[in-house]
């Protein structure tokens, strides 16, 4: 049987690799692969491998400081999984594996072993990349091999623990302990442990002194000291065994730490294979769900679930049968997004922001905090400005999967474009407006600069309110055009098997997006700049700001109109049967 499994495993892997290499004959994958490999080489490997030959970045004692914290994090992860996870005793099999292996004369243990061995590929790869990537900024002195092996121990043990825990939860369910009771029991145990720790340590451990809180190192030493005190140390000991190989500073430390970690891993393995819980039913269910998710994602339906929601959501507004069809699309999409995406929510959020920031700004002592909020808000606004359309990428990608439906509607191409873009434009505009409101309430407040006046700030904000909708529209037209003009690339960036070539494609798209964005904004910036120069000379700065933003807004509106018309032409001519694989 083992030979059959090995055959299945290695043949599948070889065929997948051959398939991946063969698709490099298509330029879109080849170019993507080259860019992806270059990215990995320049950003990850070069630095990481250069780092191998260099001295460790941090002091050797740093690992000793981080190790207790890592132990606590691992404890929290495991505790949370017992508290909140509802994952049934399911091993991840594909539908084909379920169809062929479950009815086959194969023991339960063999199936578990097969699945565990398969999961090792992902764990090895994750450990390898984590070992490489986390080399940058590393603060302890472990070597590359030990780091990778350390990650492998942590990930493998967690994998085994989650599996065995899912078996144990199912067993508890069989014994009548439902998830609520289980959570109560686990929660009570954690609270009891916390109380015990407090009781025992209340006279032993003191609160951190000023010297302890002086810097991160002293704070780390204090935390390590507390965690090394019984009974905390007793509970954390198994977790420490798991993380210790990763934090080993020398080869000897590593070899000393390894046996306990491996013993714990072996214990988890025995726990998993000895559990007499049926995993087959849940695995079949999970395999079907997974296959459906993949199929849905391949066809562009990213949020597809087996049955879909069963509870109606509120309507954002009453949809009249007459009027712009694009509003119907907006109405439909806002229903899908749920009750958070309603006008009243934005109004409440704006009111809360105005109230809270005014209260803060009223106290001169809190002015640094207000300023900090303002600049963080501006940074977030800029970040969302660049990456917002990337968040909407999936919505835009649905364009292709829905085109055979929307093209049957009695709508012109430009109407379909507006219908499909309106929701992301509205969402992005509202988010940016909110950032603008916060910036207006924080940045200029209490400024001693005579140039920054309330009137100027208000004029600038009002102008930006006008600019943002067409600007967001323009930004979203770019990925939409990408989908229409490079549909094969848009398709391939779905979950058809990731890889370095898909990553390269995304990098190319990102670069293209930035270039097109810069070119598209140029006319508005030029006309706005010219208007500012003329009006500020003739009338004054305040009026110049208003005129500038108005001019820029008009130019952007014209650009969006032209872009929608152009994209509408493309939609009208778009031949699904030739652009997409039949």
């Amino acid at each position, binding site marked *: 049987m083992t030979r059959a499994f090995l055959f299945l495993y290695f043949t599948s892997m070889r065929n997948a690799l051959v398939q991946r290499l063969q698709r490099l004959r298509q330029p879109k994958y080849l170019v993507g692969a080259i860019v992806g490999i270059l990215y990995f080489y320049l950003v990850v490997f070069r630095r990481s491998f250069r780092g191998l030959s260099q001295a460790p970045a941090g002091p050797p004692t740093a690992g000793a400081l981080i190790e207790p914290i890592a132990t606590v994090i691992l404890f929290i992860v495991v505790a949370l999984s017992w508290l909140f996870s509802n994952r049934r005793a399911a091993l991840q099999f594909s539908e084909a594996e379920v169809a062929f292996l479950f009815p086959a004369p194969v023991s339960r243990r063999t199936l578990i072993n097969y699945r565990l061995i398969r999961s090792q590929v992902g764990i090895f790869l994750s450990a390898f990349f984590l070992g490489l990537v986390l080399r940058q900024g590393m603060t302890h002195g472990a070597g590359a091999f030990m780091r990778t092996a350390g990650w492998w121990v942590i990930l493998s043990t967690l994998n085994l623990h989650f599996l065995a825990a899912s078996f144990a939860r199912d067993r508890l369910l069989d014994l009548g302990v439902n998830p609520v009771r289980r959570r109560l029991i686990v929660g009570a145990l954690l609270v009891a442990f916390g109380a015990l720790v407090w009781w025992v340590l209340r006279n032993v451990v003191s609160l951190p002194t000023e010297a302890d809180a002086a810097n991160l190192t002293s704070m780390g030493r204090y935390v390590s000291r507390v965690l090394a005190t019984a009974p905390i140390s007793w509970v954390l000991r198994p977790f420490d065994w798991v993380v210790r190989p990763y934090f080993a500073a020398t080869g000897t430390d590593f070899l000393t730490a390894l046996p306990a970690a491996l013993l714990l891993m072996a214990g988890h393995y025995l726990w998993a294979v000895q559990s007499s819980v049926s995993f087959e039913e849940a695995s079949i269910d999970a395999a079907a769900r997974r296959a459906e998710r993949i199929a849905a994602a391949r066809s562009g339906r990213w949020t597809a679930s087996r049955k879909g929601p069963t509870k*109606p959501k509120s309507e954002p507004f009453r949809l009249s*049968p007459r009027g712009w069809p694009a509003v119907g699309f907006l109405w439909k999409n806002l229903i899908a997004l749920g009750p958070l995406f309603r006008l009243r929510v934005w109004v409440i959020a704006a009111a809360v922001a105005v109230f809270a920031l005014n209260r803060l700004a009223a106290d001169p002592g809190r002015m640094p905090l207000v300023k900090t909020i303002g600049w963080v808000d501006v940074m977030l606004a800029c970040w969302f400005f660049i990456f917002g359309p990337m968040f909407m990428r999936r919505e835009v990608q649905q364009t292709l999967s829905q085109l055979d*439906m929307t093209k*049957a509607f009695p709508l012109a191409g430009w109407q379909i474009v507006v219908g499909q873009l309106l929701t992301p434009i509205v969402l992005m505009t509202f988010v940016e407006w909110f950032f603008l409101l916060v910036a207006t309430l924080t940045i200029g407040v209490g400024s001693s600069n005579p140039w920054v006046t309330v009137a100027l700030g208000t004029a600038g904000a009002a102008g930006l309110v006008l600019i943002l909708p067409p600007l967001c529209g323009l930004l979203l037209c770019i990925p939409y055009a990408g989908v229409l003009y490079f549909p094969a690339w848009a398709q391939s960036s779905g979950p058809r098997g990731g890889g370095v070539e898909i990553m390269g494609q995304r990098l190319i798209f990102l670069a293209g997006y930035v270039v097109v964005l810069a070119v598209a904004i140029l006319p508005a910036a030029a006309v706005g700049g010219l208007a500012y120069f003329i009006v500020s000379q003739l009338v004054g700065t305040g009026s110049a700001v208003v005129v500038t933003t108005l001019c820029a807004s008009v130019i952007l509106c014209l650009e969006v109109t032209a872009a929608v018309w152009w994209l509408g032409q493309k939609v009208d001519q778009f*031949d699904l049967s030739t652009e997409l694989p039949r």
Partner: protein
Amino acid sequence: MIEVANLTKRYGEFTAVHDLSFAVQAGEVMGLVGPNGAGKTTTLRCITGIIPPTLGTVRVAGVDLATDPVAAKRQLAFFPDEPRLFDHLTVEQHLNFVARVYHVADWRDRAASILANLELSDKRQAMPGELSRGMKQKLVIACGLLHQPSVIIFDEPLTGLDPGGIRHMKETMRRIAREGAAIILSSHLLSLLEEVCTHVLILKAGAKVADGSIPAIRERFAVEPDASLEDVFFRATGDAATNSASEPPKP
């Protein structure tokens, strides 16, 4: 109602549909039949304006699909084999959305009548996830009929339906044909075509093999007068492997 003239669709060197011409008048149900890869789906997609034909014209209720696609599509309803619904809209909200797209002002009254007809009245507030396959199919039909189309196209309408759903679907098709719509019905189920269609168009390798009433086609291709449509189909498409009779068709 629908006139297709010299319709050709090419994918590079490959011709999926070649010089196809036919017409379906009000009240008629035309069955579109052919082996896999005959070009049925491509033909339907061209007729519905989803993909552009390479050559030829399609006129829907007198409107040329190429010159005024919006007006032509206003007269059309297309029911694909798989009911595709919006996961987050209720039955009633689907109809509301379609009403907006097709500008159906009195949609509430029409929807009430259609839903009652399709026995969906008690499912107005149901989500697609709560509906059976048959009910989903009915909802798609309700959406399609809301704007009272004059040309209706069904692609494998019985897929996944239970016996009750099948009977209901056949009755619906006959009823809307009686009410004056022109229907094109694409299906591999020859018995369905025999029951519902007034005439049949047989395609093979993208080209028309036969077009006419079922008795006329039977007359042309059948060896025996009581031959089934299945026998006629195999003779017409020249499928030697499954053709029980080896004699050539009558001229």
